[in-house]
């Protein structure tokens, strides 16, 4: 269970780590937009280069990133297969009974795979790997703070989010420990039918809930003891400011998006490479 690495901060010192959390939130959104702008071969090549550069700049070992990809390999394969077999087109490469594979299908499959990979790399590097959960929720709160004017409880949502994030590893640890304790008393999680396995979870779930409620209760008391009373009039200990590098990064990202649009336009005008419909 300890191997869940999505959503884990990776401590390192890189230009991306040093950016303001607000900038990184916007960059993540722009990055997602960019992956969907891409429509032509050259644009996807540019996107791949962008992904590689991102990993290099962030100083996160590729090993760590690959591990985060593992759980979604199945989804990637699935979309690739769907694209290969279900895309119609003009250039028929292969036919067997009712199965027809077109060159367009292969292109689409490759593009979708690149898209998913860069999507994951981009959002995880900007959000989880280089930003601590606390900085992230702080950034979200400040980014959304204009909504406070129309009575949206932004601070409360951000607080709930940071508490939830904070307790994910704790609860994983706890579940691990309870599971070991019940295994020591002879619970068998790995054999038997579906109903038997579901029943074997009861000795895990109940203590887990009990301890989660106890923790919630203790946390609430501790917060009240320190006079927490919601977001009103609350100031921050560390106030971050947007600097030159933040604006630079944003401009770079927007320029990249614009370049992708131009590449798409030229590619379809002059018929360079394959262009997605």
């Amino acid at each position: 269970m300890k191997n869940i690495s999505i959503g884990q901060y990776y401590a390192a010192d890189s230009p991306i780590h040093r950016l303001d959390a607000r900038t990184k939130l916007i960059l993540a959104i722009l990055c997602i937009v960019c992956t969907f702008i891409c429509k032509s071969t050259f644009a996807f090549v540019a996107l791949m280069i962008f992904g590689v550069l991102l990993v290099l700049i962030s100083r996160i070992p590729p090993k760590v990133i690959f591990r985060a990809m593992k759980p979604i390999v199945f989804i990637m394969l699935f979309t690739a297969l769907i694209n290969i077999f279900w895309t119609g087109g003009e250039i028929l490469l292969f036919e067997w009974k009712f199965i027809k594979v077109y060159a367009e299908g292969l292109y689409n499959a490759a593009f979708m795979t690149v898209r998913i990979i860069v999507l994951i790399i981009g959002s995880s590097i900007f959000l989880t790997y280089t930003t601590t959960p606390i900085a992230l929720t702080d950034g979200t709160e400040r980014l959304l703070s204009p909504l406070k004017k129309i009575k949206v409880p932004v601070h409360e949502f951000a607080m709930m989010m940071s508490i939830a994030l904070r307790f994910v590893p704790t609860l994983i640890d706890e579940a691990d420990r309870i599971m070991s304790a019940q295994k020591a008393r002879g619970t068998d999680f790995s054999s038997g039918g579906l109903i038997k396995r579901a029943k074997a979870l009861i000795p895990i779930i109940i203590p887990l809930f009990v301890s989660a409620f106890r923790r919630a209760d203790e946390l609430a008391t501790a917060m009240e003891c320190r006079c927490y009373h919601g977001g009103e009039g609350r100031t921050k200990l560390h106030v971050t400011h947007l600097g030159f590098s933040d604006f630079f990064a944003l401009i770079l990202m927007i320029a990249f998006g614009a370049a992708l649009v131009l590449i798409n336009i030229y590619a379809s005008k002059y018929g360079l490479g394959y262009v997605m419909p």
Partner: protein
Amino acid sequence: MNKAELKNVTFRYMPGTVYETLALNDVSVGFEDGKITGLIGHTGSGKSTLVGMLNGLIRPMSGEVLLDGENIWEKPKNIGSVRFRVGLVMQYPEYQLFEDTVEKDISFGPKNMGLSPDEISRRVKEAADIVGLSGKELAKSPFDLSGGQKRRAAIAGVMAMEPELLVLDEPAAGLDPVGRETVFSAIADYRNMRNSTVVIVSHSMEDMARWCDVLTVMADGGVLMTGSCEDVFSHAEELKKTGLDLPQITKLMLLLREKGVPVGENIYTVEAAYAALTEIFGKRASLKRI
């Protein structure tokens, strides 16, 4: 004869990541049949990891874990039967309680063993007796017990499986002196009744000196020394280097010796110190004490 034995066992947590920790480094150690062995060592020295090896909760990356001379990982499918022979009480075991009555919770282990209802109720009664839980407490919800009672209920839950080797990770952590006494004497009672082997992990030198026959000292993922209390505590300097210390009463006695009071060197319990002092100062001192 060793009931259980580790042979050249190595274990790392989260191998291949930056968080990799070498928890056990080529450890070889035996636990003598019928004895109470105390496992001591500084925080993070690998005690809990070692203890998790004994009933197959953690699988060694290299090396062997032997139970009665047989490798428990010979047939990984049969690891379940090893867990019935080696009972492990984990650190803070009260968080494993889940049934609606204490009695049901204690019978959870025996039920998993597939025993008959008569046998189960006999074992539950005996285990509850050993740890000192009354019929009234057995009918309660485990969540309505006090901390010490919860601890004893959780220990009874493992004792009811009647393991040949009972392993307890810090069974008395966070309990008051009376609570500690109850827990340790329950463990000693269990050993005497079943003639089983016991391994206790603890930070308290006093408790270890009082209740254990053999001490094994761990430091930085390895075994530093094994021997009787006298053997181990005579290496005071080495113990101090690894962040451990002698029992308080022993230090007091050594200080008295330095000052010229002729007490013996090997005094590790308050009772022994009391006896030694009354012998020197006579009954007068003991009366004054009362």
